[in-house]
């Protein structure tokens, strides 16, 4: 069987994405037990290669692998051979000598995961590559939506608000939400909306006048670290907040609010919204573990059967 990567949401069919979500759901009871571990991936090797800072993604991939009884190793750019000038290709070749089953990779540069995949027999899972993709985030977002709103996501209206230009989460979510039949609008300051983004099948708004039509409002933070000095994407965070910051007044009761974190209270989200019961931010974090278990599991056993053994595994 050819190895199966997860580099982008586009690598998945709708049925496969739904299978991941169903699998994640089947793992939920495991996470409620006293002994939160199953032997499913015992003897498998998973390497987490993180070339960019991460808290929630790394910990949740690591814990997901451990819950499935896989052997895990974490490699970071600093303190590794990368510091000594080793190329990505050579690092991948070196680590591949250990015959890992999966390499989970985060990298600041777009294309790094694809390059890695070329030089390893391990399956590569993209845990975020620059501004391009973060598919496990999109899948956990879908999972969170299903948990909160029911399985039928078709026709739901989702507004993604904020810095779309620099966001791999937005790029993954647009594809994932559309894959499950949702209607996506992106909103933000014009300089932070990619040109021609409507060709991705989304609507574009520069104000929030029609925000109340949304079932789900997905907030993104300003990625100041990706904005060059003097690039002038916005005049100030203050004006950004005045125009796009999410407050109780801008929302109607029942609208769900999501955010991939980390959140910046008082900028893209008011504290009242961050702590509101309709806000699913903590649910997203919780979903991360089960969904990443499902991704690791599906990457190894494949997406083509929903066998009894799989049920048994959970």
């Amino acid at each position, binding site marked *: 069987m050819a190895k199966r990567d997860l580099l982008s949401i586009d690598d998945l069919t709708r049925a496969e994405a739904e299978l991941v979500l169903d699998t994640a759901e089947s793992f939920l009871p495991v996470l409620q037990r006293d002994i939160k571990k199953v032997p499913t991936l015992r003897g498998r090797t998973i390497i987490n290669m993180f070339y960019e800072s991460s808290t929630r993604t790394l910990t949740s991939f690591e814990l997901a692998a451990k819950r499935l009884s896989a052997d895990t190793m974490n490699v970071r750019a600093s303190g590794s051979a990368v510091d000594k000038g080793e190329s990505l290709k050579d690092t991948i070749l070196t680590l591949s000598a250990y015959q890992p089953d999966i390499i989970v990779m985060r990298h600041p540069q777009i294309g790094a995961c694809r390059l890695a995949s070329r030089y390893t027999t391990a399956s590569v899972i993209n845990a975020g590559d620059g501004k391009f993709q973060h598919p496990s985030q999109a899948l956990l977002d879908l999972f969170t939506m299903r948990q909160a709103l029911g399985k039928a996501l078709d026709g739901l209206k989702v507004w993604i608000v904020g810095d779309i230009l620099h966001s791999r989460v937005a790029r993954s979510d647009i594809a994932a939400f559309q894959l499950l039949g949702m209607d996506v609008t992106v909103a933000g*300051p*014009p*300089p932070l909306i990619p040109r021609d983004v409507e060709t991705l099948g989304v609507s574009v708004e*520069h*104000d929030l006048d029609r925000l109340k039509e949304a079932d789900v409002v997905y907030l993104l933070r300003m990625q100041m670290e990706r904005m060059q000095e*003097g*690039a*002038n*994407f*916005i*005049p*100030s965070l*203050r*004006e950004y907040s*005045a*125009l796009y910051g999410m407050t109780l007044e801008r929302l109607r009761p029942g609208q769900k609010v999501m955010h991939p974190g980390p959140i910046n209270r008082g900028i893209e989200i008011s504290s009242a919204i961050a702590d509101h019961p309709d806000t699913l931010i903590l649910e997203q974090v919780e979903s991360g573990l089960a969904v990443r278990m499902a991704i690791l599991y599906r990457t190894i056993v494949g997406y083509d059967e929903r066998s009894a053994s799989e049920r048994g595994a959970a």
Partner: protein
Amino acid sequence: MSARVWSKGGAGADLVVRGARVVDPQARLDAVCDVFVKRGKIAALGEDLEVPQSTRTVDGAGHLLLPGFVDLHAHLRTPGREDEEDLVSGTAAAAAGGYVALFSMANTDPVIDSAPVLEGLAQRAGAEASVPTGFFASVSRDLAGKQLTEMHELAQAGAVGFSDDGKPLATAQLLRRALQYVKVTDRFVALHAQDDALMGAGVMHEGPVSAKLGLTGIPAIAESADVARALEVARYEDGRVHLCHVSSALTLEHLARARELGVRVTAEVTPHHLTMTDEAVYSLDSGVKMNPPLRAESDRKALLAALKSGLIDCVATDHAPHAQQEKEVPFEAAAFGTIGLETAFASLYTRAVMARKLSLAVLVERMSQAPARIAGITPPTIAAGETANVCLIDIEARWVVDAAQLRSKSTNSAWLGETLQGRVKLTLAGGRLVFEGGA
């Protein structure tokens, strides 16, 4: 819609103007009739209007009654250089020129780059301005060409548009960002197009006159090259731009092409560029030193033709007051700019309409209604029910432009000593009598 102009209050005028020739292109009106203004509103138009006996009658025979003028481009020097002009003197000059609204540029000290500065000015205009006055905010903070201003908040506070006028936007990227970001408002970006490197240390139009005088030239391409670049960016971003003080025929070629391509661009031209040429610089009189400079006769003719055709949308004065000590120096050392509010109509009437190069109706449209539409204020029009925004002009009156009689605090007029025809006798702005000239 939030306010875009502010002026001091006062009672609406009550008067009837009898027998003036009323010319209003928007109302498709060109007829001799009476106009009755009651409590600041135009109550009736017609022949032999019956009005209450107590109503003051103004004899309009031999006069034009026109929709008042709107100036998109004035420098009222407030805050910071109130020695050169302030809201009182600037609006007095405007009223004397027949203006019923004007917009002041942001290159003040401090720069109009934040809502508190703008709100402070709006408040002052509400107390001091006789003629409704609005303000541009700058595109970049402190006009430094680096960081965008908070355009949304500034638009909410009433900025008519955004401009770093006095300076070009240094990079196409800054313009691009401004045109992208300004879409969070319904405003526009007004450009002082100028390639600084091509401008160099130039002080006058580059041509035969500069060759003879030895003055460093400002080539026409210093403007047209920057315009071409700006229009490319505006086209790509579908941004709304306004070209300030267009001066050269080369620029018009780019403007015409952009129009054909559907670019959202408007343009203004000054009275001095429409009526004077670089030949005036032979005098070495600093009063004719402007930026952009007076250009060749062929440019002047092309500008007039473009104003007539509508390629250029409107007339704007670029009223630029300067202290005497900034102009009473050798030509090369003098500040750029001329005042223009008090002479705009008369200079164009004398040199363009009387010379049969432009019809009166077109001139009125280009000075009144077209700039009002660009600014997003209600265009002045002489129709029943409208607020009275009109000027009455003695069209036979010939007068010599005399520094001692100007209302502006500054006297740096390019027309000093010139004889012009057509003199404003009365101006009603926002329904109030704001100017009345002597006999």
